[in-house]
């Protein structure tokens, strides 16, 4: 995962050939904090990737259930909780502070567990 974040830091504006902004250091740092906290809580991270919105997306999944948390360059974050089997999806804003990380990790765990 450290190598992935290293590559994220090397992206330039327009990395998608459509002018997408490179992830900011703040977005990368926020995403890295979530990944670190998630691993500390025993959650496996599927992938980390740049967002065309400008930022970094972190994906967790279990079977047909998935959570994507996107950290944007403006120091905001948003999450999509989906269950393909139930054809269900909801979104939520994620505060980028200590309480926000604790909340989203709990929510990710509950969603992946089917609760």
């Amino acid at each position, binding site marked *: 995962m450290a190598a992935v974040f290293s590559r994220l830091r090397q992206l330039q504006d327009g990395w998608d050939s*459509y002018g*997408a902004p490179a992830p900011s250091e703040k977005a990368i740092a926020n995403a890295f904090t979530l990944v670190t906290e998630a691993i500390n809580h025993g959650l496996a991270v599927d992938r980390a990737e740049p967002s065309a919105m*400008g930022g970094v997306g972190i994906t967790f999944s279990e079977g047909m259930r998935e959570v*994507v948390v*996107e950290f944007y360059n*403006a120091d905001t974050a948003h999450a999509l909780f989906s269950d393909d089997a139930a054809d269900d999806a909801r979104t939520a804003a994620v505060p980028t502070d200590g309480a926000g990380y604790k909340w989203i990790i709990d929510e990710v765990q509950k969603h992946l567990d089917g609760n």
Partner: protein
Amino acid sequence: MSVNRERFGAADEARKGFDPADWAVVAFLVRDIPPRISWVHIVQVYRLLVRHVPESGNYPHSEVRVWRKVEERLALITSRLNDDFPVDDPDRNEELGRPDALLDPDFHMRWRKHIALACKLTLTPRTVDGNGEGTLR
């Protein structure tokens, strides 16, 4: 979103210039793109259109473009500038707005999920054996 349109070429052309061992091709139907979407919890209206945008060496290249209604006008959501569009592009003179200003994360994340679910695997990554015969893996 950058895509290739089947009407203008075969699926394999989507990975032309790339190692087919590394790339699969997935497809969705044009009708999977709703022409107008409104997410009811936030009063926002988006419009989506497919444009054929041929590229050098990739004639079928097309783009799914998204507009958002802003004060009764539609603004094309893009990080590009007007001059970045080809001179014959029908949207070259559109009013533009940057994704970070106009693209609500709710819409962006739900749209991406919608298309991911609509996608069907068309071509798997391919290896070529010693006889030059294409095999699937």
